[in-house]
């Protein structure tokens, strides 16, 4: 199976070039910082004799901030590690010796995508799972629906990864990076606009936020994950990255999954059609 050979070589490339280990080390570094912050906070609670209810809510808020950072980090990692894989090999000509072998182009593409998707999943498992484990072990605090949240964060990362692959079939590495990060930034802005609209009750802002989410639904997926995972008190906060003023529906999540599939097929088709 040609795609499996490509997946294996993609994984091996990430390991040899130390991309995989650097990403994992960054994740471990983040977890260490998060554990240190919890340690200091819990020490302060113990010293001040903070009430268990307040203590729980603050530690829960810290967990949500931790998961928010994990989400941002994982999306950026998915984009940065994969930004050069298709465009770079086309520009350097490395693809010539590969694409003339007896495997269809879709297998080359899918093999690479699966390799990066597996690495992204490993990074999400380490950082997302690690954050929850650290939080539970040190502060006995866990998110409401960790599995749903985890799957949604992974969906968001895979979506960003797939869009990166799509642009990689048509644009240079630099243009690709600018485009994908720009789109994700746009989605981020759209998410905040929707939250502000919930606060200011502006229908036009809601509509703008929805249109931006349709253009790039990554941030909408995070907001739904955050809503599913947050505690009732955090949900009551009107203005935060996890605020529930405008909750993306199941339909929006379905749209996100469909968006990923369409982007994947569009990228496959684009790679198949282009001259190398």
């Amino acid at each position: 199976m040609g795609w499996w050979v490509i997946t294996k070589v993609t994984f091996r490339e990430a390991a040899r070039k130390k991309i995989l280990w650097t990403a994992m080390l960054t994740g471990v570094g983040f977890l260490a910082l998060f554990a240190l912050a919890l340690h200091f906070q819990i020490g302060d609670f113990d010293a001040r004799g903070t009430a268990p209810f307040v203590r729980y809510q603050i530690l829960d808020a810290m967990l949500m901030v931790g998961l928010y950072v994990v989400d941002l980090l994982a999306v950026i990692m998915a984009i940065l590690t994969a930004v050069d894989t298709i465009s770079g090999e086309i520009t350097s000509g490395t693809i010539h010796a590969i694409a003339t072998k007896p495997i269809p182009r879709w297998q080359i593409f899918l093999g690479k995508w699966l390799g990066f998707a597996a690495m992204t999943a490993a990074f999400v498992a380490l950082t997302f799972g690690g954050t929850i484990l650290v939080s539970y072990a040190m502060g006995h605090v866990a998110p409401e629906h960790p599995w749903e949240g985890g799957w949604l964060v992974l969906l968001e990362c895979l979506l960003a990864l797939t869009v990166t692959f799509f642009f990689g079939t048509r644009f240079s590495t630099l243009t690709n990076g600018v485009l994908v990060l720009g789109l994700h930034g746009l989605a981020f802005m759209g998410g905040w606009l929707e939250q502000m609209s919930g606060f200011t009750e502006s229908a036009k802002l809601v509509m703008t936020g929805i249109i931006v989410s349709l253009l790039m639904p990554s941030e909408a997926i995070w907001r739904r994950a955050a809503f599913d995972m947050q505690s009732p008190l955090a949900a009551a906060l009107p203005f935060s990255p996890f605020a529930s003023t405008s909750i993306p529906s199941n339909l929006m999540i379905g749209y996100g999954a469909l968006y990923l599939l369409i982007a994947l097929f569009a990228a496959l088709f684009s790679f198949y059609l282009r001259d190398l």
Partner: protein
Amino acid sequence: MASQKRGKTLRTAASTPAIETRELRKQFGSKVAVRKLTLTVPSGSIFGFLGPNGAGKSTSIKMLLGLVKPTSGEGTVLGAPAGDVATRRRIGYLPEHFQFYKWLTPAELLRLHGDLCGMEGALLKEKIPEMLELVALSRHRDKRVGEFSKGMLQRIGLAQALIHDPDLIFLDEPTSGLDPMGRKLVRDIIRAQRDRGATVVLNSHLLGEVEITCDNVSFLKDGEIVATHDIKTLAAEEVRVTVHARNFNRAAGAKLSSVCTSVRVEGENITLTAKSPNELPEIYRLFAASGADVYSFVPEKLSLEDVFVRLMGEDRGL
């Protein structure tokens, strides 16, 4: 034993051309890279594909390999439509700008390309040291490809193109980074491939190399084949004659044009191109009959470079 195994892989009848194209064309936007490629490459031969920079050689090869989609026209490679995925199992390719995964060792790189060609693990285990030995890279088997010189990269590139014993091998500038010993090695490998029945398409600017390696050559100019020659009969074709003569009259020069394709007179030095070696006695007779005093009459076979320069015209600085 290894050559017997290789011999079994050849599946193209000698009578079927390895490559056949009809008016293959590739246009990138308004730029025509290949205008009208009509070409037949006989099976079991070493075929030279020549032309100046920008003539469309690499694009033509890429169309035959399926890397670039033709705008129009048609082509068959080993009897299947150009770019057919299954047929690529029988094709080897060394790209012009050979870039491989630099973080692999040569043995790992060969394993990757063997795997992609669907080779069995046991066969690969046998073939990898054999191929490294063939291209004289056994000593460097533990280095990373990223540490290789240009010549070493070309050698490993050649090995990856040959590891699956292909029936048709495209070599795009295979000797440009090699020293004379390396060039000889590549020449010997190319001939050995032809001897086992494979067809080799060689794209090179090193015309001396092409002349001593190829059986046939085609010249590509502005995306179109302008001439095809059998290298063996090139000697029987035009001959350049350099004559040093006094009292050569111009009227005699006019008579020379019936047996020559070009006549250039510069004082006492006359350079002419005879249509064939058979015309040499007649040319000499014409000189003698004109009453000229002939001090030297030196015929020499036209080199491939002479033919190339004449066909391609002036250097366009590409």
